[in-house]
């Protein structure tokens, strides 16, 4: 999946409905900044955003993420009957482990499928999909 192709097909994707806990996350991503929650009591990072720390039920604050991570696992989707994605197949869906320790699902883009391997270093690419939503994608880390 090239970045150009990604931009062209962004409008086909179903977008998330931000809720109270996630509104800042999606809005920040739309503005080109990746943020994650950290517990003000126990210091644990978490993703996805919630109204409490899942470790200790404490309150959370937003911190900037480094935007770097590694590929924890992945698959190549060869068949998706949904019209939005049928034309994109095959494409890579992976679980990215951010340097902050949290994991998120995304697409691994801007490289050949054959280059993808568990453990590879990745960097985030944030694309604005709507005024209130940016979507993080990940590509092989440069440098």
């Amino acid at each position: 999946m090239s970045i150009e192709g990604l931009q062209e097909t962004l409008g086909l994707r179903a977008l998330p409905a931000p809720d109270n806990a996630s509104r800042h996350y999606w809005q920040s991503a739309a503005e080109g900044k990746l943020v994650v929650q950290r517990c003000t009591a126990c210091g644990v990072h978490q993703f996805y955003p919630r109204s409490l720390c899942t470790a200790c039920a404490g309150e959370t604050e937003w911190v900037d993420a480094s935007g770097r991570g590694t590929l924890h696992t992945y698959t190549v989707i060869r068949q998706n009957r949904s019209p939005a994605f049928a034309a994109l197949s095959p494409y890579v869906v992976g679980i990215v482990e951010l340097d902050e320790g949290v994991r998120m699902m995304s697409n691994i883009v801007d490289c050949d499928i054959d280059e993808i391997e568990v453990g590879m270093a990745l960097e985030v690419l944030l694309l604005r999909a709507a005024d209130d939503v940016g979507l993080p994608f990940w590509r092989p880390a440069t440098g």
Partner: protein
Amino acid sequence: MGSRDPVIVGIGWSDYPVVPELDAMDHHALALRRALADCGLEKSDIDGYMCAGTGFNSNVDDAPNMAEYLRIKHRWIDGTSVGGSTFEFYVQHAASAIETGLCDVVLVTYGSDMLSRVGRMLGTSTFSSAATRVQGPSGYESSWGNVLAGGYAMAARRHMYEYGTTSEQLAEIAVGVREFAGLNPFAQYRDPITVDDVLNSRMIADPLHKLDCCVISDGGGAFIMTTNERARDLAKPPVYVLGSAAAQSHWTISQMPDFTTTAAAQCGPEAFARAGVRPEDIDTIQVYDSFTITVLLLLEDMGFCEKGEGGAFVDSGVLRRGGKQPMNTDGGGLSACHPGMRGIFLINEAVRQLRGEGGESQVPDCELAVACGSGGSLSCIGTVILGKEGKS
């Protein structure tokens, strides 16, 4: 042994795998009628009811709706809905309700017209469109086009990375289950397959091939639980619920804490401890086979082998027909039927084997069975140990 020890006394199936003339309600009704006939109880004997809707029938088939439709006069009802393992959770809940005297006769029904009504969408679709915003945790997955099969594929990939598990070992699971499907006249696919057939089938979501994935079918089932004492004058010997346990590690796949370990690592050992038996004592294994990797993870997590050794364990032939612990003796979800939530078929098949009603696929000297269901995306796991005899 106590007089209120929970037992399964009646089992029934509607029809599967392709039944366009039946809708979901018809499946519930037919399975109920057959389960009653199986044990000799009257409909009016039922005072507990459990049911979970299919999710694609506008909730008209959820517990309160179905209790009304079937006119079940219950004093206890449970509509827990955790995906395919719902029915293993139900055995645990019903056993507790029966033991404590909240009710005496619990009916569980399931019915799905998934294949005829929805088609083969479950595993390979993103349930959303660009026209609507996605609510809740699915919003962290839908925008990237994952499909149900993709989640399991990522678990398989991680297991391969950490433990060197191979596609050939996963394929062996599908081959062994297909052998049993060949003995089930109702199974959706019955022709024998080889490991090469699995590896040469179309890739759906790497590393899972088409034949690593379960079928999509129509179907339904019912079972009836009561007390050991009430079972005495019924048509067939009871099957004893010796131990049950359930647990959840996540719901959406991207929240799975460890992609190689399911909640069976908790509820498996708990169920065995409650039953007072060990995995090596089990005569037949009925395990959720939504995908081949599901089987491998659940077997490891229940303790049939060490974590990471599932590949070698399935390769040993122990799960095959004629092996020490034959698995999915009705042909499983991989070959026989999977109408969306397959857990009820695991319970019914375990009961059929323990009664000695297995016909050509009967496991010799079958006295102990385990049913282990997985619901969601390897999320909610229920483990049930069933026995021909009660606890001594």
